[in-house]
């Protein structure tokens, strides 16, 4: 097979060449530099940098908080998508547009707003404080910030699938005697599953790397509420470039693994929906 199929349109060499050149300069070369730089470290030194107890604690906080935030958004996102697609209510367009706010609002702004709201004397914090719930400057604050930042993912992956779902399937199930709950559980949910998982994985991947919104509300206490991206920054501030590089390589590895999983999920999603048509 030839590299490229014949076409009458011009500009293939120019556009592909420019794409590859620009991609290499901006993305591939710098990422390669990261991996090459980490090879300056011997294995024991690399291991000491990435398996330091304080760094291990940041993995637990980062992955734990990201999983919690993504799970919360799995339910809230399904609920929001469901209500937006199926129920009429006033102000729906506005709410629909507002769902994308976390993508449009700079993370630092979200960070200081949430930190102020959930501080013990803040709008929301003052009601939570008497209940013994501390949000700001605790790991719970990290979950709140990550929930905000990743809120749109599940909604926006589930919404189009729910929109295209055929009424006939539900009508058929109803006419065969299924209750509404059975229809949701056995007909609708299996159709939504790939989209739900894709949204969850996208939210999780974004949450793991998030920095700006988290650092203001987290309090950044070692072993308690430090996230992994912050470790990279603090290593850099101590001019420990190799230490920062080692942790960054671990994070990059996680990003690649998640990207691989997300691609697989999207392929599964496309296949499942394609078969129904």
């Amino acid at each position, binding site marked *: *097979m030839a590299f*490229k*199929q014949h076409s009458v*349109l*011009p*500009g*293939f060499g*120019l*556009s*592909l060449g420019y*794409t590859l050149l*620009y*991609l290499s300069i*901006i993305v*591939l*070369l*710098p990422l390669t530099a*990261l991996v090459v730089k980490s090879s300056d470290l011997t294995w024991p030194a690399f291991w000491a940098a990435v398996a330091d107890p304080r760094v291990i604690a940041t993995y637990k906080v980062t992955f734990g908080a990201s999983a919690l935030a993504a799970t919360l958004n799995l339910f*809230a996102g399904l*609920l*929001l998508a469901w*209500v937006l697609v199926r129920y*009429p*209510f006033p102000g*729906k367009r506005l*709410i*629909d*547009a*507002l*769902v*994308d*706010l976390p*993508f*449009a*609002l*700079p993370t*630092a*702004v979200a960070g*200081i707003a949430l930190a*102020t709201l959930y501080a013990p004397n803040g709008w*929301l914090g003052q009601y939570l404080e008497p209940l013994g719930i501390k949000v700001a400057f605790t790991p719970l604050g990290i979950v709140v910030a990550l*929930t*905000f930042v990743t809120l749109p993912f599940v909604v926006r992956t589930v*919404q*189009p699938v729910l929109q295209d779902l055929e*009424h006939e399937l*539900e*009508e058929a199930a*109803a006419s065969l005697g299924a209750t509404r709950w059975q229809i949701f559980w056995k007909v609708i949910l299996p159709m939504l599953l790939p989209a739900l998982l894709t949204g969850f994985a996208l939210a999780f991947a974004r949450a793991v*790397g998030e*920095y700006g919104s988290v650092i203001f509300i987290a309090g950044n206490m070692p072993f308690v509420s430090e996230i992994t991206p912050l470790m*990279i920054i603090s290593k*850099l501030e101590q001019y420990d*470039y190799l230490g920062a*590089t080692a942790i*960054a390589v671990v994070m990059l590895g996680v*990003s690649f693994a*998640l*990207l691989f999983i997300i*691609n697989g999920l999207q392929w599964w999603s496309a296949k499942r929906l394609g078969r129904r048509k």
Partner: protein
Amino acid sequence: MAGAINNTPRSVVTTESRPVRYLLTGLALLFVGLFLVIPLLSVFVEALRQGWKLYLAALVEPDALSAIKLTLLVAVISVPLNLVFGVAAAWAIAKFEFRGKSLLITLIDLPFSVSPVVAGLIYVLLFGAQGWWGPWLSDNDVKVIFAVPGIVLATVFVTFPFVARELIPLMEAQGSDEEQAAMVLGASGWQTFWRVTLPNIKWGLLYGVILANARAMGEFGAVSVVSGHIRGLTNTVPLHVEILYNEYNFVGAFACASILALLALVTLAAKSYVEWRSARLALEDQRNALNDQ
């Protein structure tokens, strides 16, 4: 992209009872209120807490002004760079069949999955004092890290995929029949692009630019690593917000944050408008196709 919204009632067997509907809608609105509306409102309330005078004073202060200028400069450079790249990549990927295409698409999406902090770090490793080209750069008196070029590079990285990923599916769906017709009728390659392709993709292009611009002006993590936080020189608005906040200058921090929040609202409005326009165009196309038959 948000799906089209319909408000048509559904048949009785395919919807829930009224109390359940009200309960679910109420829960969804509560969640939106708690997680989106209140944080957004709080930015403006905190900014205006001590009145308009202090609010305006915080915005026209020299460090704030230079941060605003730098943010605009960075967006003006990085968005067009990614715009040209996005069009070139979409042309190659959508109009031609070649091997390794899906790998290329994955690589283009890569910056979205890389943590912003890692994105900043990779440029420090290349251009920083300890980096590959650091010694050469300092010999020739070129500053990249802790200077504007580094901020631009980091911003280009984090906004890299926006235009391309908007255009690729759009141009793939449109196919290349119209371009082929133009070529057969004697148009040159550039004429075909300017007169046939560009009008077809303009709304998708605008959509990608709006999103890339919002991210470029608001990026924090990547820029924070490469900027060096030099007041009046290498502070963008988000970094300026951080400094003021950490100095307990809350009015100043929220005043600058409120400009970014306004930018976010403008972005959402523009995005909704573009979605509405392109949905209407698609509908018109469908109607025309039906009339032709």
